[in-house]
């Protein structure tokens, strides 16, 4: 098969169009670089009525939004999921890593939770605090200016709280709490757990003329058609194109590997065009990987050459290692005070209006690192699953469960909106022994060798999950709520979800000053190949209990500025 070479040589080829890729493409193109974006999925614009799921009703889907086709249901805006036909991955030694991929322009930013938390000063220096893992080669002060810029460019609501490890930013004002959230505040305070307004990248207030303001439909997971939430397409790529910058989009283009010259320097990206199933190369002076932590690791490991026999930039043999996801565990409760509640529109923004940041001192606990608590519930729009076991809570009220007839309709009305849930999202300790690697025995439908995962939780994470459930129960008791389900046992890992399930996987190309113990330097640049950068979650040394997107974007911005400087100095 002949490999077809694209005629143009780009200043930068960016692989992936999510948070990191979108930011790099925007910043590089704004400074005059000609940029190509290689995206494995189709073009997507939330404004496109043909692709739009926002403001649709459940009955418009024959399965009423069930998750049989899309992992989070018919209306969720992720083309992809945990399993993608033709794109398998495998496990080693009984691992159960779950790998979520969105194949579309904007990637997972189209459906994500918009929880936009800065890492705090301690989050960059965990080893200095507890002796575990490693410190980042950079500190909060290095990243702060970029967090500031991201806040102002993209918009995030929140409140000034002056908490030591939850830095404040340039916030838009948050929305008022919902009813079940007020009950949560009450219960949490009784349990000595703090609560503050949440921090989400949703526009409660205008930040520019080009983007709409939130109209409170709660459907950010469907990607906002007026661009009132952050998605990479709507907030980074389209505005950059609109401003006249040179960004060419290559969609349905599955990156295979990075091609190098005799000196071992990157010259091009090879990809498979999914439409004609032919292989192409696209040349670039700089290659920016932003395909997601695991996809970027896969591309580097598959980029084997005489100069880089282990994979590109893998002299340390660490690419793929230190893979770590957030910990996660959830619990639900029935709130008797919310039985037979008054009806009004409480959709609000797409997600919680309040949350609990990490509040404890690990010196007094039997696990390292912390977690934050997310809150959900309310009178939501029904979809598949609504009405299952409709009156199971009657057992708490001394009434019959099950039945038939008019009584069931009364029960459905009575219990509507009377449930809520909490989710702990915490920091795991990055371990060298948790990794992805190339499976020597399998390729995907494009002939590209696939990833094999080896991932084990440790007691650090299990004990953290146990603590989450103790806290959840205390808060629910404080609210006067009935906790649903039994407390997960030791045999159930205390309810700790399988790795990958929280979709915060990072760490596969971690940054550091020492090329023997890290893959990238403090500017996200491969130690061994100076014209290759990684701007997704790969360079994270540690995860914090913060969702990674805001830090991905801050670091992608920082790395892009560095790329432009280095190009000016003719260093790369």
């Amino acid at each position, binding site marked *: 098969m002949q490999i077809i070479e694209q005629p143009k040589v780009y200043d930068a080829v960016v692989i992936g169009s999510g948070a990191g890729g979108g930011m790099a493409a925007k910043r590089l193109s704004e400074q005059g670089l000609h940029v190509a974006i290689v995206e494995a999925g189709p073009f997507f614009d939330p404004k496109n009525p*043909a692709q739009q799921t926002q403001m649709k009703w459940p009955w418009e889907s024959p399965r009423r939004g069930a998750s049989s086709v899309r992992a989070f249901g018919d209306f969720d805006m992720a083309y992809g999921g945990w399993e993608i036909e033709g794109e398998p991955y495998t496990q080693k030694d009984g691992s159960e890593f779950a790998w979520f991929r969105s194949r579309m322009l904007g990637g997972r930013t189209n459906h994500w939770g918009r929880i936009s938390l800065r890492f705090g000063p301690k989050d960059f220096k965990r080893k200095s605090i507890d002796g575990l893992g490693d410190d980042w080669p950079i500190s909060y002060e290095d990243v702060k200016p970029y967090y500031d810029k991201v806040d102002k460019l993209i918009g995030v609501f929140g409140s000034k709280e002056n908490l030591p490890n939850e830095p*404040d930013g340039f916030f838009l004002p948050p929305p008022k709490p919902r009813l079940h959230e007020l009950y949560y505040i009450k219960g949490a305070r009784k349990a000595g757990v703090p609560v503050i307004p949440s921090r989400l990248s949703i526009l409660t207030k205008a930040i520019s003329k080009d983007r709409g303001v939130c109209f409170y439909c709660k459907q950010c997971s469907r990607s906002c058609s007026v661009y009132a939430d952050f998605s990479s397409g709507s907030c980074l790529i389209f505005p950059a194109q609109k401003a006249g910058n040179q960004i060419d989009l290559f969609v349905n283009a599955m990156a295979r590997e990075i091609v190098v010259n005799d000196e071992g320097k990157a010259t091009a990206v090879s990809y498979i065009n999914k439409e004609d199933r032919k292989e192409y190369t696209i040349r670039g002076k700089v290659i920016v990987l932003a395909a997601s932590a695991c996809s970027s690791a896969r591309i580097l490991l598959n980029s084997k050459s005489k100069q880089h026999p282990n994979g590109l930039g893998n002299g340390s043999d660490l690419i793929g290692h230190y893979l770590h996801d957030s910990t996660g565990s959830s619990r639900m409760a029935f709130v008797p005070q919310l039985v037979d509640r008054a*009806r009004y529109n409480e959709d609000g923004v797409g997600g919680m209006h309040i949350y609990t940041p990490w509040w404890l001192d690990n010196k007094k606990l039997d696990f390292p690192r912390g977690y934050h608590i997310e809150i959900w519930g309310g009178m939501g729009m029904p979809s598949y699953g609504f009405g299952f076991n409709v009156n199971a809570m009657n057992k708490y009220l001394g009434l019959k469960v099950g039945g038939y007839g008019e009584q069931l309709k009364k029960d459905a009305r009575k219990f509507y909106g009377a449930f809520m849930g909490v989710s702990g999202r915490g920091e795991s300790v990055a371990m060298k022994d948790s990794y992805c690697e190339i499976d020597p025995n399998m390729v995907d439908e494009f002939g590209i060798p696939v990833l094999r995962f080896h991932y084990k939780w440790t007691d650090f994470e299990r004990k953290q999950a146990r603590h989450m459930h103790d806290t959840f129960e205390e808060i629910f008791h404080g609210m006067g709520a009935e906790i649903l389900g039994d407390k997960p046992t030791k045999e159930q890992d205390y309810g700790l979800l399988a790795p990958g399930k929280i979709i915060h996987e990072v760490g596969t190309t971690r940054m550091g000053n020492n090329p023997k113990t890290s893959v990238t330097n403090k500017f996200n640049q491969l130690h061994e190949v100076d014209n290759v950068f990684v701007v997704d979650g790969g360079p994270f040394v540690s995860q914090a209990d913060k969702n990674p997107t805001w830090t991905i974007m801050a670091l992608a911005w920082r790395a892009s500025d560095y790329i432009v400087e280095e190009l000016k100095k003719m260093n790369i």
Partner: protein
Amino acid sequence: MDRRETLKTLLVGTVAGGAVLTGAAACKKEAEAVAETVEEIVEGGGYGRTPKEQAHDKKLQAETYFNAHEMATIAVLCDIILPADEVSGSATDAEVPAFVEFMVKDLPYHQLPLRGGLMWLDHEANRRFKTNFISSSDAQQIEIVEDIAYPPMNEKEEKERAPFAQGIKFFSRLRNLTLTGFYTTKMGIDDLGYVGNRPNIWDGVPDEVLQKHGLAYEEDWLAKCINQETRMEIAEWDADGNLLT
């Protein structure tokens, strides 16, 4: 984007699919491909399907699982589960049987328990009344339903209802599907009183609701929240991140 424009985008929608790609001359072909795809989806999809998803839906819709007798029995059961009342119509008014038929094709793990359950039910009716379930009288149908409508809540009930255990399982499954099918229609949502999924401005829990629950917003918390009158004013901050607008 002002409010009028926001609403226009929402309600009418604009075909921006191809337009944003035009900056990329090298990708003109992709733009054309997107435009074609867009037309294709708009025609038959209607809820944002990809071409592959749309084909999948069509395939499922073309298949038939339940036979006429099974569908008739499901219809009778659905209306026993959710009859019309003064607020809303019945399960069949909301076309729940057709939803059940679609769901067993979409989630095939429902197939065997429902088909087998329907046979169990006919057998039970035959045993008691020498005829199948739908040919039994209303009173006879209810007699059987009474035996299978209440999952046992303790060991004693479990023992008592052991002869109907399979029937109880079947009925619980159909009850779940009937309720979910009903409350995801316009009729069901109107009955329930869900009033969202429309552009609005959230400005907190209504006062009378707060009072009823004995709750109140705290002054210092409210001070942090958005003043909705200023929502359209473009945000500006001082150097310390204090909002000025």
